[in-house]
């Protein structure tokens, strides 16, 4: 079990002067997990990532990567990390191949294996045709790909990507998602993003950070559970007697919306859909639409990050 624990962050804080950029954050990441890091701007996502990758020393707390303490054995710990910062660290005067070779050498890949490592990283990031091009002449999307290739070239156990899909086209975004899935089979992936659907589609664990504090740490399944709806949205072509709906088992209330739809609120676990449909057919109401509404991750995100401080503490 301890073998699978790749990242351990233990009550880490980071202060810039009096400002607590990250305040007492703890979490762990296992092998085979994709952890999505969410938060509004300036919430401490990047600071946390910089601390995990050894770019920034935490004011207090400990970080362990694959069992190596980042402060006591920085070299061993850093060897297990591949990091793509917000702005990819590229040497514009190099070609893609030269740059990746340099990165491979930096990560102490033996000379004989460098060509293979470079080839594999390029294939995974869709760079096979770009090897001889100067990085300075590449478009933003391609530079991003080179940045990702750099992060995975030494097959690190932990891959940390800060907004990996920024500046990419939709096809490429999908490829990156597949790549992240692929990586997660043997590695642990931490990625930060502000694109919420991306978290839902590619992560299996979600953390929301706000003002330096973790306000949510849950698996996607748990999150879906939390977002379980208790609302139905209905549209009828004929007039409807709402009191009859309200008499159904489990229904709490109904509401007529401006656009002519009805919203039916019911108690969790007592889905009245079947009874409702039967009622509508029997009375010739002309049911046209029936949509179970879900609270989106977006709603959840807003709810968690918008409320005031006392509530934020209560949620933890």
């Amino acid at each position, binding site marked *: 079990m301890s073998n699978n624990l790749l990242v351990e962050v233990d009550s880490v804080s980071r202060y810039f002067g009096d400002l607590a950029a990250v305040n007492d954050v703890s979490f762990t990441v296992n092998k085979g997990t994709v952890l999505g890091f969410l938060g509004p701007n300036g919430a401490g996502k990047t600071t946390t990532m910089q601390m995990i990758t050894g770019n920034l020393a935490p004011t207090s707390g400990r970080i362990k990567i694959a069992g190596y303490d980042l402060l006591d054995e920085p070299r061993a710990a850093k060897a297990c990390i591949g990091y793509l910062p917000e702005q990819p660290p590229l040497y514009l005067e190099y070609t893609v191949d030269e740059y990746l070779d340099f990165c491979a050498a*930096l990560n102490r890949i033996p000379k004989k294996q460098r060509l293979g490592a470079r080839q594999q990283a390029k294939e995974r990031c869709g760079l096979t045709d770009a090897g001889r091009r100067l990085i300075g002449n590449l478009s933003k999307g391609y530079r991003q790909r080179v940045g990702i290739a750099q992060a995975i070239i030494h097959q690190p156990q932990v891959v940390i990507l800060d907004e990996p899909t920024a500046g990419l086209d939709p096809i490429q975004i999908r490829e990156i998602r597949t790549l992240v899935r692929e990586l997660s089979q043997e590695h642990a992936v931490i990625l930060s993003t502000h694109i919420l659907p991306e978290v839902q589609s590619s992560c299996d664990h979600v953390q929301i950070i706000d003002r330096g504090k973790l306000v949510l740490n849950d698996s996607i399944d748990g999150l879906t559970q939390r977002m379980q709806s208790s609302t139905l949205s209905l549209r009828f072509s004929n007039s409807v007697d709402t009191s009859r709906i309200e008499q159904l088992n489990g229904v709490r209330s109904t509401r007529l919306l401006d656009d002519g739809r009805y919203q039916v609120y019911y108690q969790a676990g007592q889905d009245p859909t079947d009874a409702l449909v039967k009622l509508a057919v029997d009375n010739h109401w002309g049911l046209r639409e029936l949509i179970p509404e879900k609270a989106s991750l977006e709603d959840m995100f807003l709810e968690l990050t918008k409320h005031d401080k006392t509530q934020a503490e209560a949620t933890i």
Partner: protein
Amino acid sequence: MIFTLAWREIRSMFLSPLAWVILGVVQALMGWLFLNHVDNYMSIQSRLLSMQTPIGLTDIVVASVFGNAAIILLLVVPLITMRLVSEERRNRTLTLLYSAPLSMTEIILGKYLGILFFLLVVLFLVALMPLSLLAGGSLDFGAFASGFLGLALLLASFAAVGLFMSTLTQNPTIAAVSTFGMLLLSWVLDTGGQGASGNVLAYFSLLNHYEPFLKGVFDSADAVFYVLLITTFLVLSTRRLDADRLGG
């Protein structure tokens, strides 16, 4: 690992026109000065021969060429060292080095070695000029070697100062200007101040320790002075990079 970093420095220097321009300009200037010194020697040659203890080609031409080279390179080295760390910091590529399994010492030593190699090329090209005199005369190789070693140590100290200045800022121009300031100050230190305090200041003048080398005197105290100076600035640079990680 240090060599990987050094090699990258050398490569990116020669990938940009800067290195070539610097080599060209230094070589042109030194060529002009060298010819002047040779000319000067030719005009006073007859009088030199009649002196009791004749001073030779090495004393006049070699010492003067190495002396001039020190001043010209004092102006040029800041331009080479300015971008070492500051540019990487500005382009955010320093992150790549920080996240790689490298110690700060390795990063600094790698960069320093890269610069040293470039300066050795400059030094070698400058030394070729006096050596060309071998075609028509003979040189005092002891004095030549001493001058060569002196200039090498001096350049290595310039580079260490420049590297440190580059770790302080993310703007290459600021790094260049402050390196200029430091080096020029160290040059003129011996002209200011009288008495004991003046002597102490003069002792820290970089060029004061260079003069004996030009005369063919190898004083280990002078050599140690340079080595200590280089070590000090390299250690300071390492600490400065560490502070990047710790500071806020």
